[in-house]
């Protein structure tokens, strides 16, 4: 990990860009907006770094495990495919968790409201956001590992990337379509689609809408945990520790 330099770029993106980007806006008109803008930049950078770099790393690790012969080596010595996939996935989390911690650090240190009540709400919202973000991203990383091991790093990267973009933005367009025309297939597709946009709490931070109600937050946790279970099952079936013969 030390030898590969891309992690430095990822680290700088999550650490420095939230400090720099808000000053590229016409902030002079309302300096009070700098802090929410910083929080927004921090979370957006984290989403981008995860989608652009971590998903690819996960897919590449999966690809490497099967292609290098190490997957077959560990399989022969009694390490099951599922165990190998979990270990690779956990290795990916060692990259992800510090980035989430940095993002929270930027929000807590660089964008904390001065009012005590607001500050408490700010902390709660950010922690909720971090929990939902991890619930969305970690199963997608598992999918990247498993598909990467079976179909190669490119496909392993593109599938979770497309799923996350679809879940964040595509579902919104689908909702508009279902409102315009009544179509059973579209309605069904909307229901089964992963609604990852629900995990994006950036507007709550930017507009200081406060944290989610516990019941509302728990509903989302259960929903994303359900998706996580489905994706984890899919990933464990798809993972292939040995190269295709």
């Amino acid at each position, binding site marked *: 990990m030390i030898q*590969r330099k891309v992690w430095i770029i990822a680290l700088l993106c999550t650490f420095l860009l939230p400090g720099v980007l808000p000053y590229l806006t016409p902030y002079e008109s309302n300096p009070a907006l700098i802090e929410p803008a910083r929080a927004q930049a921090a979370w957006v950078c984290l989403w981008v770094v995860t989608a652009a770099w971590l998903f690819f790393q996960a897919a590449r690790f999966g690809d490497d495990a099967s292609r290098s012969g*190490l997957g077959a080596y560990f399989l*022969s*010595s009694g390490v099951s495919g599922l165990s190998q996939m979990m270990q690779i996935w956990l290795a990916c989390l060692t990259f992800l968790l510090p980035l989430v911690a940095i993002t929270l650090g930027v929000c807590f240190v660089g964008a904390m409201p001065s009012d005590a009540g607001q500050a408490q709400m700010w902390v709660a919202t950010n922690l909720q956001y971090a929990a939902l973000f991890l619930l969305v991203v970690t199963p997608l990383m598992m999918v990247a590992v498993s598909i990467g091991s079976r179909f190669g790093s490119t496909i392993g990267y593109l599938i979770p990337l497309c799923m996350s973009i679809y879940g964040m933005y595509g579902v919104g367009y689908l909702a508009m379509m279902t409102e315009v025309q009544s179509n059973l297939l579209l309605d069904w597709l909307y229901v089964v689609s992963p609604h990852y946009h629900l995990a994006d709490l950036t507007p709550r931070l930017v507009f200081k809408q406060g944290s989610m109600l516990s019941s509302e937050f728990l509903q989302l946790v259960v929903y994303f945990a359900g998706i996580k279970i489905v994706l984890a099952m899919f990933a464990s079936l798809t993972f292939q520790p040995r190269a295709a013969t």
Partner: protein
Amino acid sequence: MNSPSAKPRIHLASGLSIGYGESLARIDSDGGGIVLEGGTHYLLARNGRGKTTLLKTLAGVLRPLDGGYECEGRCQYLSEDLCFDRELPAKAIFKSLLKKSRCKDALELAETIELDVEKPYGKLSTGNKRKVALLVAEFSVSDQSLDVLLLDEPFTGLDAFSREAFQERWSQCQDGVLRLVSCHPDFDSMEVGSSVLISDGVIKHIPGGGSDEKAQSWGELKPQLN
């Protein structure tokens, strides 16, 4: 810990058939199959006859087409194309995969066979990359378990000096490890000892190399391969 008399063992039952979809090689049904016990056994066959397929089957990476086998011991399958992270030096690979005490032994042997353990794996030559994989396998064996090493063409790209160093180690080691080594010997006088041959789609065992048996040379075995 296993009792001193316990030995790793491979039993290829009669009727075992291996391959991808269609049978590549099999064990004759009229016999008791093949039993291999601790020590070094060479797996010899011409290209494409099923050496790698047999090793993968024994490692549990591939399913046999028919029949069965038993592998008693902790298997390790070293494929011909096994490679490690390009950025890591051999020393880091040993540290991450071997126990501390074994790592020291591996580094000593690495020095003997002139492997630069500080150089990133990706910058090593083909032969030196093979040395890393072989050292990992050699020093992963545990005193507490019965070990079966399935080595697929481990000598490819290795210089004669290093190959002899490994062969000498195997002949001197009384660790009871079962090594099944697929290879293409490159000189007729090479003593092969116990060997498993795949010829005309049939897997057979030619014992040899025991205390009361004369080891055969590659030159004597070669005509039996087709």
